[in-house]
């Protein structure tokens, strides 16, 4: 019996010829990172271990992306702890205000993750990087500290669930809609402790940005990692960026899957996750008319250039509804610059939107767009838990960028077709 891509990567990094689901293995880690929330605790734990240096300064990155630019004194202190550690240890891969983007977007862009690698981050959405054919998983700060000290971390080999997409994608149906559909079907624990492997011809119809938003949300189904085998599009994307030589890994033809789910996407509609669970997935038409106070386009799930293009396509030549605030947050300086060059930022400003420097802030109810009691937000983020974006009495609907932009124009949830009758060139 052969191995899946996830099993093969873990076996290789554990120096084992073969692994099986359930095995406990200790793996080499190719790259790791922490953010401004998780780094201070990781640094504290690293100091408790009592080693003098990180295992390899070239394989550790710190990204200040959650509460940065600092929103208050306490968050400024968190950033300071991280900066001081970085300077003390002479760590080169440090991303501070102005150069920082949302880690999962920035670190991929910067070529820190490549096919076949093991990538660990102290942030649950680290599974994002599986779109590149890497084993990528989120851990806590203590695990990150252990990996920082030793370059190794233990894992239980997960069983793999196989999701196959066939058919032709309808207009406005994006990678985000596909992953929400799956989470709606299998639930927030449907892939608990498992690997979610995404496959099928539809992947080739998706941009890299859309593929990232699929693997990004694997954790929302409880998965350990989301992964896609690296096709030519992935290799073309990675080659000019990768900082290290890499070897793509593919599953064996006789690999064994714990379950296989097949989807024909041809008749799909754009969907939303209604609060308070990412698994409350409904076609947007079924919640059409829900009044909206704020629309947020950004985050590690959907703050990439493709998302901003989709939003701009809806917003071009239109004004947002007078009762709605629109926040647009490009996920990285690179995305921001590209959006500027393509004229997208102009579209957002002309529509009446606010555009911010990259930050995770609104997604965690941290800063930049915290919701008041009773307010409703349509967000391109990944979580709509109670109190996630602010007051426990606020509500968040998760959607793709076009649906969020359409809601900003209409002042209520609508199918993007109701706002844009014909595609608009930006």
């Amino acid at each position, binding site marked *: 019996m052969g191995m899946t891509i996830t099993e093969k990567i873990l076996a290789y990094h554990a120096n084992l010829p073969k692994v099986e689901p359930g095995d*406990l293995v200790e793996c080499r880690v190719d790259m790791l990172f922490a953010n401004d*929330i*998780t780094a*201070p*605790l990781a640094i*504290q*734990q690293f100091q*408790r*271990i*009592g*080693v003098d240096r990180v295992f390899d300064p070239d394989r550790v990155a710190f990204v200040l992306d*959650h*509460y940065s630019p600092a929103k*208050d004194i*306490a*968050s400024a*202190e*968190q950033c300071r702890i991280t900066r001081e550690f970085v300077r003390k240890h002479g760590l080169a891969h440090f991303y501070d205000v102005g150069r920082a983007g949302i880690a999962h977007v920035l670190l991929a862009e910067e070529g820190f993750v490549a096919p076949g690698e093991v990538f660990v*981050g*102290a*942030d*649950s959405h*680290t599974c994002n990087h599986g779109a590149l054919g890497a084993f990528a998983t*989120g*851990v*806590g*700060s*203590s*695990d990150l*500290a*252990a990996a920082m*000290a*030793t370059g190794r971390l*233990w894992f239980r080999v997960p069983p793999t669930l196989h999701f196959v997409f066939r058919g032709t994608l309808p207009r406005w149906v994006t990678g985000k809609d596909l992953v929400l559909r799956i989470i709606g079907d299998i639930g*927030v*624990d449907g892939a*608990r*402790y498992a690997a979610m492997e995404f496959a099928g011809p539809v992947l080739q119809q998706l941009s890299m940005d859309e593929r990232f938003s699929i693997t990004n949300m694997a*954790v929302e189904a*409880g998965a*350990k990692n989301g992964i896609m085998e690296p096709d030519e599009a992935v290799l073309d994307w990675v080659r000019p960026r990768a900082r290290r030589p890499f070897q793509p890994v593919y599953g064996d033809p006789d690999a064994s899957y714990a379950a296989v789910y097949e989807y024909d996407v041809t008749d799909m509609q754009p969907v939303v996750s209604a609060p308070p*669970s990412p698994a409350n997935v409904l076609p947007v038409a079924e919640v059409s008319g829900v009044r909206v106070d704020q629309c947020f386009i950004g985050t590690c799930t959907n703050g990439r250039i493709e998302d901003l293009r989709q939003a701009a396509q809806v917003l071009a030549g239109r004004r947002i509804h007078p009762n709605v605030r629109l926040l647009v947050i490009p996920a990285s300086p690179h995305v921001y610059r590209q959006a500027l060059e393509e004229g997208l930022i102009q579209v957002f400003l002309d529509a009446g939107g606010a555009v911010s420097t990259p930050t995770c802030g609104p997604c*965690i*109810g*941290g800063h930049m767009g*915290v919701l008041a009691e009773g307010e409703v937000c349509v967000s391109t983020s990944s*979580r709509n*838990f*109670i*109190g*996630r974006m602010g007051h*426990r009495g606020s509500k968040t609907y998760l959607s793709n960028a076009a649906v969020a932009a359409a809601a900003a124009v209409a002042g209520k949830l609508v199918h993007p077709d109701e706002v844009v009758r014909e595609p608009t060139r930006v």
Partner: protein
Amino acid sequence: MAIRGRAHKVGDHVDTDLIIAGRYLVTTEPAELAEHLFEDLDPGLRQRIRPGDVVVAGENFGQGSSREHAPLALVGAGVAAVVAASYARIFYRNAFNNGLLLLECPEASRAVQDGDELEIDPHTGEIRNLTRGEVYRARPIPPFMQELTRLGGIIPYVRRRLGLEAC
């Protein structure tokens, strides 16, 4: 050492935001985090939890964020153990890494009522419901996790592996 405390029941899929909301992640101090434990789930719950008490949850406890502040907030409030039908994986790792005992026991998750007096043997996984005169058996903790717990979490484990600490 046996754990003896009152049960505080919470439901299925209690996420890390409900354990400790994102707005409070500007500190790593367990005592400060504990002040806001379960705030968005049930604002009165924190006040009812006494040191030594046990949280009894449904399925998938700890889903969501990787924030280690979640187990730290529970530790800071003096919660001695969590009994749940099942756990989200990052939370599971984080709890053991911080010395918070987690027991997986769907039967206890169903049978225990809020306020029941529980006695737990961390070694055998036996959960005695003193209020109802019932006994539930948790799924045995995997040997590797037992070893981690015995050593005091991932940090002493790594210290030992690196030869910085004797056995």
